């Protein structure tokens, strides 16, 4: 059964295996299959069980079994392990079952007679995974476990996609269960006799197929920033800018986006082009200026900014964004820095909205729900997600695992987790296993593309007159 489930897993997929039968799936997935196993206690990319005598007592899966951590694995906290489940980074969850229904309902955490149960991580996995596979014995002491309705308390309603048992493989469709495969030596009728729900038979019904799929390697390393940003469409929501200074800023990707020319962009950023007009970007010589968001503003590519520090600290030295704002060419939503960080964190953690005490009684409270908790007023703030995140990190491995340097973590870390497509700009790309799994800050599952900065690259450019950008 575990072998059959292993055949469902694709290269690059992030997969969580529940307690019981599901944990066996890891043993039948070849290390070179490129499947990334996620465990809720905080590991990504773990390998098969440790050989006897080679167990590391600090390295267990969610069932408490000693596993291994092959090159490219990463360690995260429990909180982050569930944040990535809720935010849609988990491709497949494989769970055991007490009962499963033809509607895709699953019951696996509690029997009614006991009166109390252990939700563990199963409810979170079932709700968060993009695809839910149930692996279970077909019957329990002869009684069917695949039913029209579950009588036990549910783990999830209508979430199951595929059921793999010792007798059959069944797909949950809008029209009930579809029998796709039967175990060697079993007929459709004998399977039906042990199933508590009607089975439709697939036209392509076959004997259970254990062939492990072959998939081409996933390549996250792009040869240039231009190629990495080529598909950014007009109107995209872009998460970019570390903090404001030059350390955490993805200059190479920003220059490529300027040349690519996408327009109507919404930029989510701590600052919008203040490096040029503040101490954050003081150039080493007066004939140079910092590369920052201004290069996009000047080309008319930005329609809206969501930022905490949108304008120059000095009114007498306005930034390109402030000038565009005064001309009415761009929209601005000013937010508090901690709220921006938390809204992005929420976006990358499957939190839709949250109550924060910040900003009550100020302009940012306008139009927002105010609510009291423990005698203190809070504002309801909503999550932000981006179409793309441009992230500046120090090193990446080819799986997209990232480490940062110093204070350049800042907003990069929350942005990396909060976008559909995250592109990392790094100083160096290394092979999996070179970065210590304990030191990885952003796990590779958040990162779709990696680009190395050219060896000779400056965050400053010679000052030149603003070109005619064709808007006139």
């Amino acid at each position, binding site marked *: 059964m575990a072998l059959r489930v292993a055949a469902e897993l694709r290269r690059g997929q992030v997969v969580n295996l529940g307690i019981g039968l599901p944990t066996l799936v890891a043993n039948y997935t070849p290390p070179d299959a490129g499947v990334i196993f996620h465990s809720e206690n905080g590991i990504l990319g773990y390998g098969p069980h440790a050989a006897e005598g080679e167990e590391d007592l600090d390295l267990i899966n969610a069932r408490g079994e000693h596993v291994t951590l092959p090159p490219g694995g990463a360690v995260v906290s429990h909180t982050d392990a569930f944040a990535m489940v809720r935010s849609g980074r988990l491709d497949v969850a494989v769970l055991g079952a007490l009962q499963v229904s033809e509607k895709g309902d699953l019951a696996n955490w509690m029997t009614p007679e006991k009166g109390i149960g252990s939700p563990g991580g199963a409810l979170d996995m079932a709700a968060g995974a993009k695809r839910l596979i149930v692996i279970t014995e077909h019957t329990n002491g002869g009684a069917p476990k695949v039913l029209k309705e579950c009588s036990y308390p549910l783990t999830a309603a209508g979430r199951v996609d595929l059921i793999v048992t010792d007798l059959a493989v069944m797909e949950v469709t809008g029209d009930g269960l579809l029998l796709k495969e039967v175990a060697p030596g079993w007929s459709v009728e004998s399977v039906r006799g042990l199933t508590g729900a009607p089975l439709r038979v697939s036209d392509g019904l076959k004997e259970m197929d254990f062939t492990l799929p072959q998939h081409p390697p996933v390549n996250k390393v792009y040869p240039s920033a231009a190629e990495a940003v080529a598909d950014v469409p007009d109107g995209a929501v872009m998460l970019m800018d570390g*903090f*404001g*200074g*030059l*350390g*955490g800023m993805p200059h190479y990707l920003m220059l490529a986006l300027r040349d690519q020319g996408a327009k109507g962009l919404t930029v989510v950023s*701590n600052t919008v082009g203040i490096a040029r007009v*503040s*101490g*954050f970007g003081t150039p080493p010589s007066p004939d140079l200026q910092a590369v920052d968001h201004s290069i996009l503003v000047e080309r008319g590519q930005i329609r809206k900014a969501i930022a*905490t*520090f*949108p*304008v120059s*600290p000095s*009114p007498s030295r306005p930034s390109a964004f*402030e000038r565009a*704002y005064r001309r009415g060419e761009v929209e*601005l939503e*000013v*937010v*508090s*820095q*901690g*709220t*921006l*960080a*938390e809204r*992005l*964190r929420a976006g990358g953690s499957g939190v839709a909205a949250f109550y*924060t*005490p*910040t*900003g*009550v*009684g*100020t*302009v*940012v409270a306008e139009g927002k729900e105010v609510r009291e908790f423990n005698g203190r007023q809070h504002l309801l703030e909503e999550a932000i997600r981006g179409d793309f995140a441009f992230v500046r990190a*120090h090193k990446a491995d080819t799986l997209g695992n990232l480490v*940062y*340097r*110093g*204070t*350049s*973590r*800042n*907003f*990069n*870390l*929350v942005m990396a987790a909060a976008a559909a497509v995250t592109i990392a700009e790094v100083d160096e790309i290394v092979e999996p296993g070179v970065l210590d799994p304990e030191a990885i*800050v952003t796990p590779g599952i958040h990162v779709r593309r990696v680009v190395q900065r050219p060896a000779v690259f400056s*965050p400053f450019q010679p000052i030149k007159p603003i070109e005619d950008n064709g808007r006139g």
Partner: protein
Amino acid sequence: MAKERMSRDVIAMRVAKELPDGAVVNLGIGIPTLVSNYLPAGSSVVYHSESGVLNYGPLAEEGERDYDLINAGGQFLQWVPGMSFFGSDEAFAMIRGGHVDVTVLGALQVSERGDLANWMLPHRGVGNIGGAMDLAVGAKRVVVAMEHTDRNDRPKLVRDCAFPLTGRRCVSLVVTDLAVIEVAPGGLVLRETAPDWTAQEVQALTGPPLALAPDLKEMEL
């Protein structure tokens, strides 16, 4: 002839006395940044910056710039042992979660109830909120360091802030170039005056009435 007021550095020196040993402290931009220069040797104050660093040390030497090591004002820091780095979400979780003991912020206006306005001049129409709103609600104690009056000698301590607010009822203490003033439940209390300044002279440059502390004294540094 106008009386001499204390310099920005002397304001910072006075604020330094408000930072107890072992306190976790966040210093805002402007006069607050200067405060770290006036802590006694051996002080174990732990500095927090929204840029994502704890326990940072002195500013980098002139000409030394590591772009990956800055404070929230964009100044370069030295690499010192005992620092730790984290992302912006954690930096602000620490603030709202109650782990910052004292923050020192600059101000455009402070009201007699402790309302703070420091992020936008209304006539500019646009401003930078940055991390001040979070610090105003999250830090256990908010100390304001500012000049007592604006460029046109109008009081910055006012009955009601006319400028957009950063936080309501958040300021505990105000240190200016003329005085040390506590925000008490009943209003403002004058605790210390700058050398050569009388309570009446300070009151004349202050919007709301000042109650006099029983132990009102000259500012000690």
